[in-house]
């Protein structure tokens, strides 16, 4: 499944970031890389970005939907 399709409030683990090297590196800088647990806090209106929380640190990052469609996730667990 893709991060793009994760429901608000559900926790999942990032399993793979496809897309170019640069994209993975930029996300890694913000603490989002393979193995990280994340949660979608909110999707912005007008098909805007997703607000993603890194469960470990509580840091929040907005990620455009195009990019979120390149992030694969596994192990969703409802909360």
């Amino acid at each position, binding site marked *: 499944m893709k991060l793009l399709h994760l429901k608000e409030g559900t926790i999942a683990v990032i399993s793979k970031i496809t*897309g170019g*090297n*640069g*994209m*993975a*590196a*930029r*996300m*890694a*800088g*913000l*603490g989002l*890389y*393979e*193995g990280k647990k994340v949660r979608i*806090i*909110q999707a*912005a*209106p*007008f*098909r*805007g*970005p997703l*607000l993603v929380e*890194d469960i*470990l*640190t*509580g*840091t*929040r*990052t*907005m*990620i*455009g*939907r*195009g*990019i979120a469609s390149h992030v694969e996730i596994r192990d969703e667990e409802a909360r």
Partner: protein
Amino acid sequence: MKKPGEELVIALAGQPNCGKSTIFNAVAGFKVNTGNFSGTTVSFTETKVLLEGRTIRLIDLPGTYSISTHDIAEKVARDYLLSGTVDVIINVLDSSILARSLELTLQLIEMDVPMVIALNMHDEAVKKGVEIDVDKLVSLTGVEAYPIVAVQGSGVQELFEAALRVAKGNVRHIKPVYDKDVEECIERIAKRYPDALRQTWKIDERFVILRLLEMDEEFEKMAGEADRAFLEYVAENRRFLAEMHGWPEAGVFASHRHAIVLDLFERVAVVRSRSKPSLGERIDRFIINPVGGLATITGLIFAMFYASFSIGDFISGLLEKPLEALGSKVLGLAGGTAGMLLAGFYDGFTAGVGIVLPYLVPLLILLSLLEDTGLLPRIAFMVDGLLHRFGLHGKSVVPIILGYGCNVPAIMAARNLEYERDRMITMLIVPFISCSARTVVIFALAGKYLGAGYTTLIYLGNIAVALAVSFVLSRFHVDVSPGIIMDVPPLRRPYLHIIFKKVWARMLEFLMFAWPVIALSSIVLAVLSQVGIDGIINWVLAPVTSGILDLPKELGITLFFGIFRKELTLIMLNSALNTLDVASVLSPEQILVLVVFTVLYIPCIATVSTLWKEGGWKVALYSMALNTTVAIAVSGVIAYLL
């Protein structure tokens, strides 16, 4: 090592938003310089501080998430740290998000430059339930660490004393040890480390190898130039590692580092779960929500509006009488040519205090509040989707909002956009945004003579024009941008003393640079009209002023001077029209056309030169042509319709 008495260079390095500038400002001397890194447009701030009898050059570097990066500003920060000029690094960490902050710390440790760790935002860490065992962190990294709260200045003194101590001693960093197979890999590569590289590059060898394993573009380029075969050998080893772990080649080394960072984090910190969400979080939940967010943004726009409108008007009114009294005294002092010059100077002088400042200050306060509370990225989040329809980007929001203060820093802020296409469109849109100088014109003309309704309309129309221009521009840059990735720091309460400092600094900037220009230009105008040159300028511009815009041709000179500073248009209006009551000479329709034109055409020389610096002369010329065309078209249509 530097001798006592020699200037010591201390650099603040850390991830964006960790509080570097707050530390910088807490200790900064009275003289703060902004410079550019050689050969780039990336700027840094530096100041001289006297500490224990030594002069220290303190440098506030651009924020970097990681040492290996694609971002221009981040690369520059790294190059500076590696240049050998820095004696001590103060690595600033946001301790409330320690796990993420440590990524950079680990890389800095590997760089082997003397350093100390500032565990900033200690107050937030405590609130969040993050407990850090500082002694353990020190013993595991070999780097001195100090918990501080930069906004309150607590712990800052000890931090700098430690930095001085570290500058004298030897570096005893404990470098992280990777998995056995990674270490073996490093060892193999180290055996083949080319002499050519060793001689030209005075950088720690292990650090270079690690960067090469991480596929850092710049390091690969340097190493490749020295020895192609070596670079190929590194790649071979990396592929071997990647296959062994079943990870993609690009990420295999970074994955190992992430693991080490998490391990270090778990050893030095415990996170106790919090009891209930803080006030800030509850407010944040409201703002992040589409309904709450859009309500907040609308509220902010109106707040900005009415703050400038009513407060500005109020202060301006208070100052009117005393300034007039002063004027009648001053103007009586001299006659003839001297009197004329004096009158010109007086006009410019009073315009600065009486008209510009009252409107400027409320706007500056609001902008500082937006910056310091963390509302800017939240606004970006809300409007990113909407802006995409117009070919823009959520990240363009920051330059656009800053543009309401002044277009110059706004254009510089466009650097944060990673993609050339987004950056270009944003740089061309910003000059359409009504900066504080133009806001002054709007309020003083439209606000005074046309009323609040028209003023609002002009503002909204201004946004509409900017979006329309962006839409058209984006049709010419068909390559799509990949979208936004942006940090959203927590909401923070603003600190009055910090807001005050910021507003004060920006106001001083106005008083020192803009005000003299205004006063001087007023004198020049007085002289010009005495000699009759204004008539020539008016004649040259007449086809536009009276031809298309249906304005008196006497306004040509004031519009011309607006290119220097937009306030000048307003200030010179009175003398050009020879009256204090603009409404007695211009019809309301003409005032509207004048304001719209002033808002849309070339912002000012400072903005154009910034565009030149940031994007080259083509962009600067393109922007001037674009603004002039749009201004003539829009205000021409209004003049025609009314």
